[in-house]
């Protein structure tokens, strides 16, 4: 009787030991699989593919041409003249208001759950690291692609959450899409969320860096990190100063 119990006890104990071994083996397997997934790129985070693209772009060329981490446009694009109402309802002539300054232009919407707030938060944090003398040389302009929900008041409150110095522009979608078309960019479109009355606005995700001569020279796609901004902002300011000086501004 006793020996039977003991042998059962030993068998149970061995089963538990076996379970422990399986747990260790599973851990090793999981570590190996995750490492393999990383190598294939098949299971890389979909949340942030773009920093890798940005990094790749840097390695491809822009890193060599000044150490930028943003995507350098091989052919800078001239920003066409456009005027849209700001959050105070006053007309904002982009070319006139930003002449001579380094400016960042972004098209987005305040109900955006991911790209817009992350882009704005990371840019804000990096701008906050600059000394005031440099920070004041930079304009940030946010154009809403969702005029139905982004009233001037809503947009102002949302931008103030980041920086009260950011400029917000709101107009009807047609006018905004005209600006996008003039930049050779795709229009913003409404995308209904299935099974809900809610909707999202499809829009380009990059922040455009524009020097004081009105040329878009760099783009910063979704996924750019604060370290990337911290690296590029002083370089962009230096580039802007040289561009403005060369153009006699």
């Amino acid at each position, binding site marked *: 009787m006793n020996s039977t119990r003991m042998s*059962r*006890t*030993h068998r*149970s104990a061995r089963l538990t030991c076996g379970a422990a071994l399986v747990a260790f083996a599973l851990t090793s397997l999981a570590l190996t699989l995750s490492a393999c997934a990383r190598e294939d790129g098949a*299971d890389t985070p979909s*949340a942030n593919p773009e920093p890798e693209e940005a990094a790749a772009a840097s390695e491809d060329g822009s890193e060599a041409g000044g150490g930028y981490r943003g995507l350098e446009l091989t052919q800078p694009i001239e920003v066409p003249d456009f005027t849209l109402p700001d959050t105070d309802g006053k007309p904002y002539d982009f070319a006139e208001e930003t002449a001579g300054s380094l400016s960042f232009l972004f098209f987005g919407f305040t109900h955006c759950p991911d790209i817009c707030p*992350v882009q704005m938060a*990371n840019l804000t944090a990096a701008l906050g690291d600059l000394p005031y003398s440099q920070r004041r040389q930079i304009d940030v302009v946010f154009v809403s692609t969702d005029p139905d929900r982004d009233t001037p008041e809503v947009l102002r409150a949302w931008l103030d959450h980041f920086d009260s110095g950011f400029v917000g522009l709101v107009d009807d979608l047609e006018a905004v899409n005209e600006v996008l078309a003039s930049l050779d960019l795709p229009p913003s479109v409404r995308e209904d969320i299935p099974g809900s009355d809610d909707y999202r606005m499809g829009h380009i995700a990059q922040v455009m860096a524009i020097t004081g001569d009105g040329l878009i020279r760099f783009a910063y796609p979704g996924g750019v990190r*604060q370290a990337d901004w911290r690296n590029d902002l002083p370089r962009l300011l230096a580039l802007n100063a040289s561009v403005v000086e060369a153009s006699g501004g």
Partner: protein
Amino acid sequence: MQWWCSAQDVAWTWTWRPYPGVWVFIALLLLAYIRLPGRGSAPVRRRIAYGVGLLTLWIALDWPVGALGAGYLASVHMVQFLLISLDVPPLLIMGLPRPALTALEGHAVCGAVRRVTKPAVALLLFNTVVVATHWPEVVDVLMASQWGSVALDLSWLLAGLILWWPVVSPVPHRPKFPFGVRMGYLILCTVLMTLPYLFLTFAELPFYSTYELAPPVGSLSTREDQRLAGLIMRIGGGAILWSGAGILFWLWYRDENDPRPA
């Protein structure tokens, strides 16, 4: 199908989501306990300890804590770490029935367990896991996949079990380390955990792209979230380890004043 919490490219919502892998894991641990020899005769306090440990592990791994920690907030990720590696292991070890541990004596696996749970080895292993699993590249790669996330969670649990084994010293008939040594061991661990805390709390830039680029939750900035994670590690981790040392001191005092012969 998401079966384990990992970083997701979607905005956070408070809508419940199932993670069946977590349920299966918890059920397996429960089943393993039920099959352990001597479980029926184990004192109620041991069974309660194991149950509370299992419940805490479930809370740490499942929605919402698991999901928030895996892909949205570094501070919640740190709460998960503390629960899985410092809270759960001592409870699970304390819950093990003594006859099961006696029965395992002499088994090859137990020899390996004995070797890795020597205090110096255990301390080294645990802190190596702590540093490695808080390394930005490791976290960003592992949290992006469900298997990676499983690996991270299991490594915390295993490291915690190794750390706490010599403190709880659950195996009957084996000499326990003196109370003073065990207290010193836990206090030394709080000192060693200072390194990742310093990095997290005083870093100028966010470490983890997982949290920096995640859809925002609440009003915390990425940097504030990371600093909060560092403080949780320091204060929460310190509180757990110092509490352990305090309990050991109380047990020591009780033993010293026990009139019964040892």
